[in-house]
């Protein structure tokens, strides 16, 4: 497990100012970085997907691993099925698996976790994401890999809103775009 008492420096550090911005008197969107992401990838081999699925579910504390394009969670432990053979688990350290079963990879510093919530969150995200994010189509627990201004990102919908995992190197650039588009709705950086 990668851990250090040294404070982690966010990719958004230079452009993260809390407050209200954009259209006066309205807060259509709330943007928040969820700091200090803990993110592990667990990848199974085709012939023991069931075993690895069960282990990921057990590690996360959920009843069963989700199917492709879905997420389940318990507390702040979230288990996302990002590819047919790959899971992402947030909020918890995952030990290595026997290599005959699968692989584990620490990706905690590879993504910047941005939460987008508010009454206009879906409309604002659709300024960039070519996905059907309507309530009936992208229900809580949905997971997708998609393109944000040509950058591949992963997002899922939690009970509170949209959770974006932005590649760290592009995060500041994409954060700036989110702020630009959110301004018309009025937004808060929380």
């Amino acid at each position, binding site marked *: 497990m990668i851990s250090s008492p040294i404070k982690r420096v966010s990719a958004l550090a*230079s452009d993260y100012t809390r407050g209200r911005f954009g259209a006066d008197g309205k807060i259509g969107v709330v943007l928040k970085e969820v700091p200090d992401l803990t993110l592990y990838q667990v990848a199974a081999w085709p012939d023991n997907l069931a075993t690895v699925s069960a282990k990921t579910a057990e590690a996360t504390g959920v009843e069963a691993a989700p199917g492709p394009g879905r997420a389940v969670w318990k507390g702040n432990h979230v288990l996302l099925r990002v590819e047919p053979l790959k899971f992402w688990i947030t909020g918890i350290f995952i030990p290595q698996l026997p290599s005959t079963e699968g692989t584990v990879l620490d990706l905690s*510093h590879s993504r910047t976790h941005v939460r987008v919530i508010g009454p206009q969150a879906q409309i604002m995200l*659709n300024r960039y994401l070519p996905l059907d994010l309507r309530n009936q189509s992208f229900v809580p627990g949905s997971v997708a890999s998609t393109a944000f201004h040509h950058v591949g990102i992963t997002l899922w919908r939690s009970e509170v809103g949209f959770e974006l995992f932005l590649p760290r*190197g592009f995060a500041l650039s994409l954060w700036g775009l989110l702020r630009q588009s959110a301004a018309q709705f009025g937004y808060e950086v929380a």
Partner: protein
Amino acid sequence: MSARRLSHGGRIDRAKTISFDWEGRKLTGYPGDTLASALMAGGQRVIGRSFKYHRPRGIMSAGVEESGAIVTLGDGAWRDPNVKATTQELYDGLVARGQHAWPNLHFDMGGVANFFSRFLPAGFYYKTFMGMPPFEWGSGTGWWMRYEKLIRRAAGMGTASRAPDPDAYEHAHAFCDLLVVGSGPAGLSAALVAAQSGLEVILVEQDFEFGGDLLNQANPESETKRIELLSAIHTAGVRTMSRTTAFGLYENSVAGLVERVTDHLANPADYLPRQRFWTVRSKQTVLATGALERLIAFGNNDRPGIMSANAGRTYLNRYGVLPGENIIVVTNNDSPYQPALELAKAGATVHLIDARTTTPELEKGCGVSVKSESIPIKAHGSKGIRGLESTASEGIQSCDLLLVSGGWSPVVHLLSHRGIKLVWDAQIACFLPGDTDAPIHVAGSAAGIWGSKDCGASGQVAAAKALGQLGHDIKLPTGKISRGSGWDLPIKPLYEIKVPGRKLQSFVDLQHDVTSEDVRLAHREGFQSVEHLKRFTTLGMATDQGKMGNIIGMALMAEALGKNIHDMGTTTFRPPYTPVSLGALGGRHVDSNFRPIRRTPLHDWNLSNGAIMTLAGLWDRPWYFPREGETIEDAYIREATVARKSVGLCDITSLGKIAVQGPDTAEFLNRIYTNPFAKLSIGKARYGIMLRDDGMVMDDGTCWRLTETDYFMTTTTAHAATVMVWLEELLQVRWPDLKVHVTSVSDQWAGCTVAGPNSRAVLEACVTDPTLISNETCPFMGVIETTLTGAIPSRIARISFSGELAFEVYVPSDYGPSMMDLLFNASKPLDGCLYGLEALGTLRIEKGHVTGAELDGRVTIEDAGLGKMASKQKSYIGDVLRKRPVMLDKNRARLVGIFPKDRTQRFNAGTILCKPGAISGFGEGWITGATYSPALGHWIGIGFISGGFESWVGQTVVVADPVRDQNINVEIVLPQMFDPAGKRSHD
């Protein structure tokens, strides 16, 4: 000018006056006006000059089909040409002027072209200036190229600003069950039925008000109906979008829309985009796009004061402007009778000339006189109509407004975008939508249904069909709605007026000044296809895309060929239906967001330590770290010198990094690298080359074995994504049996190279256990995983790109700045420094190490001087095809180093290597990198030359730099120009 604003009526708000600037003069209008209605109310007749002949043109319509009132809006960077005054909403402070006229609209020197119009027919410029004797004798474009600029300047349509667009634009995506295009009676009815049945509906309307033709009606019942329908669709949850044009329809029910967000606002908020480009994905589409009224080609049918009959009605009923006092209406169908009555009721004298024998009966005393079996011949007047010559009366009948109705053309453009064939309906004289299996349903006038009530009913039918296709159990409304419904009497087709013995200058396409005679000329020239007609005459190629004139052009061509219009067919309409600004297409892909910028975790740290940055691909990387007073050259020479003499630190995070995991990884790597990888030990790294299938070098890099099954691969910055995609493809397509997972970890790790004789000392001061850095525990290509001070996890490999004793140090990205603090502080007592991309290039050129500049996809492993890394003991990707004879040809360009003969001289990358006296073409090779070498004390280069070093030993070669007009004599040396034995990095 006799148009005037009425004291009552219309949908304008007379309580507030809007001031605007037209041609430098202050005029006023009201909220609810378009620029055209305000100009008309302000007495302006000449609004623009025509494309080719500079003829005066006025307002000819009240919508997107406008061909005359085309203006330029705004000043400076906001200058926006080719805006249709008929669709531009009026706002306070709007600045507009006519275009294509000098010195002004009323006295235009270019108008002389009109006097020579008979000598300037279709094709004149090409036929005259291409192959012009005696210069080119029938072929060649030399003279055309010389005069094209002048010709285009004489024509053209407005001038765009040269300044960067100051407005913001954005893209957006939307999804729905049903997209309804058009908000007339058909569109509103369709949206209502669908939404009340549970569909999620988006209704788009290009106008700033919903209602379509209901907005143009005089009777209050229409307005009541409009309000009721609007209220009902909002209650039913329809998402409505006004000022939004559906400009294109594409496969899989994708529609392109442009929403004009602030084009109507005097002072828009800075956070609003000017326009928004929508991509809408719907399950079903209803097109209720209406129909456009056609003109008739008679003499001078383009004079200011001539407009479509329905436009006259629109200006009266919607904008409260009586467009003329003494009006003549010419028609061949029923539709202008109601407008004529309403105009008469408003106080105008109205004479109606109908080509048909039987005409609708009007009540006595209605104020409209009707002359049947009569046609217009020629309009009189120049900058405004003053009379009409027709068969209805002797001589010239005076008038100040001429309204024309030559029939109606359904707006079928969006269907045409989808490749749906159009069918000519001779009964109502227009093209109608053909059958289609696509989930598209056409309603209202777009389907050839003219009556308002019937349009509403057809909208309900269209919605019911859409619901049915989505599995809803809906009964289709009963009652047959026939095409042409709404007219009591049939239309009499009338496209052009010809009078034996007289030459009438009648226009078919007013925006491009295409005349009836041009169409006949095309026929005489041998053109028969309607597509060829279009290209020869430019009929239908202007910004209105032939909305008014296409049908007439086809009718004339059909007549010339002795065919029916049905047999002629029509041209294919292509997106966009109306022009889309480049800004909207670009969205937020401008300036710093043209491409997303990629920053390393050390970005802010580099900046705070004085870095000057440069973009390398998408990466924003430190270029050099100047001290006070240093130029870039001073800085990089100092940085490279310090790295050779003491220690330098360089941000290398941009290198591609891939986690390769699984029990079959060794086998996998052994197949993709040219050199052996099966037996790489844990704790060791190896340099490797990957080839493409065709045997060319794809990339080079290192691979570190961390555990039995975990590897850490690095790639060049340039090819990181290419390699990642390649590995995924191999595992998913070719070798799915291998138990290997690959994952990009380029963003997971921040990287720094510590290079120089003192690099070990720096690291020893930073790692928790300094003994791990010794030569014994971390030899050349050794790998260790340890922690830096502060328990920062790290992986370190003794790898050298600089040729010095060097280590690549990686830590999780968020700890990157802390790593740099540690390393930099440790280097300061040793007089170490930070170095950037420029010095990195210097160090690697001195060593002859290749990068993406050399591995450009045309290079074999032998070309790169790395042939010894091609294993003969195993097979690997590219192994077979790299052995093709052409790939092994000894005369191929091979990697070499380059020294100037005169060591005081310098040369540049990108230049060509030539034999002395043979400086031409591609020469013998090229230079990929050049630098001043502090280690050697003169300029050096790296590049490729045919045959490589052995072929040029002792010979003089010329570096030809045609761009700078410099030729330098150089000698070819081995690429390893500094420490060729590698003692500094290995020992």
